[in-house]
C-alpha cells in the first residue's frame, strides 16, 4: 500500500470481503447456537401466548422503566442519545444507503447531509461523555474491563473517522475514506466475538423475556 | 458494464427553469472589498474569473448585475481584447480573446483605469524615434506646401 489510493481500494475490495465473511461466520454461528440450544421444555400449562408478548417486549424494553431511570439517569439519557444518533448516521446517510443497497439490495430514502452531520457531531460528543463517565464514576470504573474500553474505541473510531472524512480534515481524501472504511471493518471483525453481539442478541433476549412472562400470563 | 445496463434511463420531460446558482455573489463581495481599497488607498485589484466554479448562467448574471458604464475600448493585440467600465464606477471588465475570438482570460479590474489601457512606459521611450521615422517617411513623399 504505497499510496493512499491503493489503501482505499484495498479497504473497499478484498479487506471488505474478509471483514464481512468473518462477521457473517461468527455471528451466524452464535445465533444458530442460541436458537438450537433453546430452552428446556416447560411442562406447566401455558396461561397466555408466547409470540405476541415476545415481539411486543422487543420494542417496549427500549424505554427504561422508572426505577432504572431514577437510579441511572445519565446512562439512560446519554445511552439513548448516542445509540439513536449512531443508527441515524449509519442508516439514513445517503452514501451508506448506497452501500447497503449494493450488498443487500435494499434501499430507502435518507436525510439531508447537514442534518446527518449535525447528528454525528452530537453522537461523538455523547460517546466521549459516556467514556468520561465510565472513567470517573467509581462503580463503573471498578467493574470496567479491558473489553469495555476496547468496545468503546471500536465504536468511536468509525464515527470520528467518518466525520473527519466528510469534512475532508485529513488529506488526501482517499486516505481519510480508507481509514473510515478500515475502522468499520475492524468493528465488523470483532463484533461476533465480543459484547457487540448485543446488537442482535439483545432483541433475542427481549423476546425470550417477553415470551416467558407471556406464557405465565404476566405482564412484561 | 453490467451496472450501467442496470441503471434505468427514464426521460421525463419537465419544465425546468434555470436555477439561480448564486456563485456570482462571493465575487461581488470581493469587488466590494476592492472598491473599498481603491477608495482608501488608490490600490488597484485584479480578479481572475477563470478559477471560479461558475455554473451555467452564473457569468451572465454577474455581467447583468454589474451593468454597463460610459466607457468601452477594444485593444487589438494578438486578437481583440474588450475593455469596458461597468455601471459601477471603478469596476472594469477585461475580456481577452485570441484571433479566433475564443476567450483567453476574463478579469475584473478595480482601478481608476485598467493598466492595459495605459500606454506602456517602454513604448513612450520609443515614441520619439517612431514619430521621427514617420515624419521622415512623409518628408520623403512629394511635399505639397513647397
Amino acid at each position: 500500500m504505497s499510496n493512499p489510493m491503493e489503501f482505499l481500494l484495498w479497504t473497499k475490495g478484498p479487506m471488505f470481503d474478509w471483514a464481512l465473511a468473518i462477521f457473517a461466520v461468527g455471528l451466524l454461528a452464535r445465533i444458530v447456537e442460541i436458537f438450537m440450544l433453546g430452552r428446556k421444555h416447560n411442562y406447566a400449562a401455558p396461561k397466555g401466548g408466547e409470540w405476541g408478548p415476545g415481539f411486543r417486549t422487543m420494542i417496549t424494553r427500549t424505554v427504561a422503566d422508572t426505577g432504572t431511570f431514577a437510579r441511572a439517569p445519565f446512562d439512560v439519557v446519554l445511552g439513548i442519545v448516542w445509540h439513536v444518533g449512531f443508527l441515524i448516521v449509519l442508516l439514513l446517510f445517503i452514501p451508506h444507503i448506497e452501500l447497503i443497497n449494493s450488498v443487500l439490495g435494499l434501499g430507502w430514502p435518507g436525510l439531508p447531509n447537514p442534518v446527518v452531520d449535525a447528528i454525528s457531531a452530537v453522537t461523538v460528543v455523547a460517546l466521549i461523555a459516556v467514556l468520561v463517565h465510565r472513567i470517573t464514576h467509581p462503580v463503573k470504573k471498578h467493574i470496567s474491563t479491558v473489553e469495555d474500553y476496547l468496545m468503546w474505541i471500536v465504536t468511536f473510531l468509525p464515527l470520528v473517522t467518518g466525520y473527519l472524512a466528510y469534512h475532508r480534515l485529513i488529506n488526501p481524501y482517499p486516505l481519510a475514506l480508507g481509514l473510515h472504511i478500515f475502522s468499520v471493518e475492524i468493528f465488523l471483525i470483532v463484533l461476533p466475538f465480543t459484547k457487540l453481539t448485543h446488537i442482535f442478541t439483545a432483541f433475542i433476549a427481549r423476546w425470550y423475556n417477553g415470551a416467558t412472562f407471556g406464557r405465565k400470563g404476566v405482564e412484561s | 458494464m453490467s451496472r450501467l445496463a442496470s441503471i434505468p434511463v427514464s426521460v421525463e420531460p419537465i419544465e425546468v427553469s434555470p436555477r439561480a446558482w448564486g456563485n456570482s455573489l462571493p465575487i461581488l463581495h470581493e469587488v466590494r472589498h476592492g472598491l473599498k481599497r481603491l477608495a482608501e488607498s488608490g490600490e488597484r485589484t485584479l480578479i481572475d474569473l477563470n478559477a471560479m466554479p461558475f455554473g451555467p448562467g452564473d457569468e451572465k448574471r454577474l455581467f447583468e448585475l454589474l451593468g454597463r458604464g460610459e466607457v468601452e475600448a477594444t485593444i487589438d493585440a494578438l486578437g481583440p481584447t474588450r475593455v469596458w467600465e461597468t455601471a459601477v464606477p471603478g469596476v472594469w471588465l477585461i475580456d481577452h480573446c485570441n484571433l479566433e475570438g475564443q476567450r483567453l482570460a476574463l478579469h475584473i479590474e478595480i482601478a481608476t483605469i485598467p493598466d492595459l489601457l495605459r500606454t506602456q512606459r517602454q513604448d513612450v521611450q520609443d515614441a520619439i524615434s517612431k514619430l521621427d521615422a514617420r515624419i521622415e517617411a512623409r518628408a520623403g513623399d512629394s511635399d505639397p506646401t513647397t
Partner: protein
Amino acid sequence: MAADKTLGESLREHGVSRRGFLKFCAATASMMALPPSMVPAIAAALEKAKRPSVIWLSFQECTGCTESLTRSHSPTVEDLIFDHISLDYHHTLQAAAGDAAEHAREQAMKENFGEYLVVVDGSLPGPGSNPGYSTIAGRSNLQILEETLEGAAAVVAVGTCAAFGGLPKADPNPTGAVAVQDIVKDKPLINVSGCPPVPMVITGVLTHYLTFGQLPELDQYRRPLAFFGQSIHDRCYRRPFYDKGLFAETFDDEGAQKGWCLYRLGCKGPMAYNACATMRWNAGTSWPIEAGHPCIGCSEPDFWDAGGFYNALSVPTGNTTGALLGAGLTGAILGGAATALAKKKSKTEETKREPVKIDELEQKL
C-alpha cells in the same frame, strides 16, 4: 535546436506589441492559476526566458494527451509557447521519420546535454517484464527512457498512464506496465495526470518552467498544486445539491435535468483532484459533470479499478453479497454442528450419569 534568443525577443520579432505581450502574460498567469497581480513579474521573467529543447517520448499511450494538447483552445498562446520551446522529438507532430527522427533526437540530446526537458506520455513495461511489449526502432521503452534521462534537466510525465500507470497498468496488467516515476530516481519529476490532462494544465506547467526555470510546487503525488490542489468535489458547482441531499437517481430523470448531484450515479468527485471544475474543457465550454456524466476520477492512480464508473464511491468493489451469503451459510453450519455435538455430549453424559447413593454421601460427610 534551441536558439539563444529570449522569449521576449522572439515575440517582438513576431510583431507582438508590448500590450500584446502583457495580454499574453495575463492569459498565461490565468492559465497557471497565478494571481493576476503577478503579471508584471511574469512579464519580466518571460522577457528573459531562453528556449529550452524538449524531447517528447511516447510509450504505451493512446496519443490522447497529444491530441488534448494540440486541441487546446488558445492557438495564440500555445503557438507562442510551442514556437518558443524547441520541440526536437515528437512522434505525432514531427515531420521526420525513421532513422532521421532518431538521429534528430540524439543530436538534440548531445547539443543540449543537461538542459533539455523530457516529456513522457504513456506507461512503459517495467524492468521485470518482457521488453518486447513496447519498442521503438527496435529498442525497448525502458532502454530509450534511461538513455534519454542521462542529460535531462527535468522530466514531465504527461497523462495518467505516464504518471501512475493508467490503463496499461489496470488489472491484470499484462505488459507489466509501470509509471515513469518508478524508473526516474534522480531527476526532478512532475506528474501531470488526467485521462487526458486538461490541456491548459500541460501548457501551464511548460510555461511555468519557461518563466521560472524550475518546476512548480507539487503535491504528494508530484502533481502541480496549482491545478491538482483541490478536489472536484470541493469545486463542483453542484455541491450545494450534495449538501442538501438532492441527488439524481438515474440518467435523465427529474433530478438529473435539474442538475442535481451525481453521487448516486457513481461520481468519484470526492476522491479526484483536478482542474476540470474550474478550468473546464474545450475553452471553458463545459465539463463531464456539467454535461450530466459523473466524474470517473481519471487523474487518480488506479481509477480504472476503483470499483466501476457507475457505482457510488461508498460501494465496495468485491462480490460482497456472495461473500456475506457464503460466509453466513458456513457460520450457520458451523454453529449447528457445534450445537449438535454439544447436545449429544450432554445427552450421553446424562445417560452415563450414575445417581449418588446415600451410603456414598454419608461416607463423604
